[in-house]
């Protein structure tokens, strides 16, 4: 085969391969979406984070506004510290409430943000003052059964 034809085919092959990679990056992956933009990091302390994982979404009004960046345990307060990396184009008031929620009954856990009314906005390194822990289903069931048992034993007295 002539060398120019060969070069043409190889060039064609490289272009197709690169196009596939770009397709994967932009259409399948989230490059160019929330990941590419500037972010700022705020911390929140939770009593219990349940099954929250790093890279879980942070949503406000159901829209993804950031991701969980880091989860660590604070040995002085005995609480979990969750670092949230939020898209810089979304500003939240300083008294925003962070709640750990579950999408659906068995879905993944995410952090929900409910904006407050403060004039000042959150900045990098700020801490979220009001947080609400994850609902632990076992505890809820235990409490329910305990209440039922207590109810049942009252008339017998």
């Amino acid at each position, binding site marked *: *085969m002539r*060398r120019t034809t*060969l*070069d043409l*085919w*190889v060039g*064609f*092959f*490289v272009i*197709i*391969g*690169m*196009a*596939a*990679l770009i*397709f*994967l*990056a932009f*259409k*399948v*992956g*989230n*490059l160019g*979406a929330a*990941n590419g933009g500037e972010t700022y990091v705020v911390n929140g302390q939770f009593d219990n984070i349940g099954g929250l*994982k*790093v*890279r*879980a*979404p942070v949503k406000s009004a159901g829209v*993804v506004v950031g991701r969980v960046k880091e989860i660590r345990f604070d040995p002085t307060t005995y609480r979990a510290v969750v670092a949230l990396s939020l898209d810089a184009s979304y500003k939240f008031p300083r008294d925003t409430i962070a709640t750990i929620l579950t999408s659906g009954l*068995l879905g993944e856990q995410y952090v929900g943000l409910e904006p407050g009314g403060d004039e000042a906005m959150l900045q990098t390194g700020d801490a979220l003052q009001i947080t609400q822990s994850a609902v632990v289903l076992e505890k809820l069931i235990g409490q329910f059964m305990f209440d039922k048992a207590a109810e049942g034993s009252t008339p017998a007295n």
Partner: protein
Amino acid sequence: MNGLLNFIRRLGAAAVEGVWRIGFAARFFVLLLRHSGQSLTRIHLTVREIYFSGVLSLLIIVVSGLFVGMVLGLQGYETLQRYGSGDALGVLVSLSLTRELGPVVAGLLFASRAGLAVTAEIGLMKTTEQLDAMDMMAVNPIARVVAPRFWGGVISMPLLAALFSAMGVLGGWLIGVVFIGVDNGAFWSQMQAAVDFRFDIMNGVIKSFVFGATVALIAVFEGYDCTPTAEGLSRAITRTVVTSALAILALDFVLTSLMFRGQS
């Protein structure tokens, strides 16, 4: 007693032979890297090999990718639908393709389509004493024949794996959205929310790169090392396919446990 001794002796011989081959392959690899300069300065040698191992593998990669994606779409939808989350089909298809199936299946196909051809070519050159003839003419056969084929494989493989994953996602989309009727927006948006570029796609690319280098090295080594007879050549070709497949699967397990363990 004698039988037992014989058995132990044979085991020892096999072990020594195995270690010797690994050592020989490692020295061969170092030699190959040392003589790789020429395959980069005389780039048309490598381009020719990219044509033979990359361009000619396009058809099988594209068709297999499409069909694997379509099967994933069908099977995944059946199971997901049972839990009422058919919308997550895009996540299932794209994650399984970019993380595992793309690099692994493309690697297996690449080993049997391109690696085998390289072994046969180099093995036949050795059998017909073309490599020795080159040596006599002061042309280094490793620099002239082996290194371009190795680098051709290393360059082709990641591109083929990316193409395989992309075609697979399109196949899943075809079945899921066009034929079954999963919502188009949910398919893509859930996929984009779940697939991370650095974590999922780049790790897949790294995997395919490692597999490409492994398959290419095994192919050129088996060809170069084959016994120069018709039977030796056929054995070398068989060994290329078997060893490449085993190496890909073993390396995939190691890489997956390094990359994805304990994370989401």
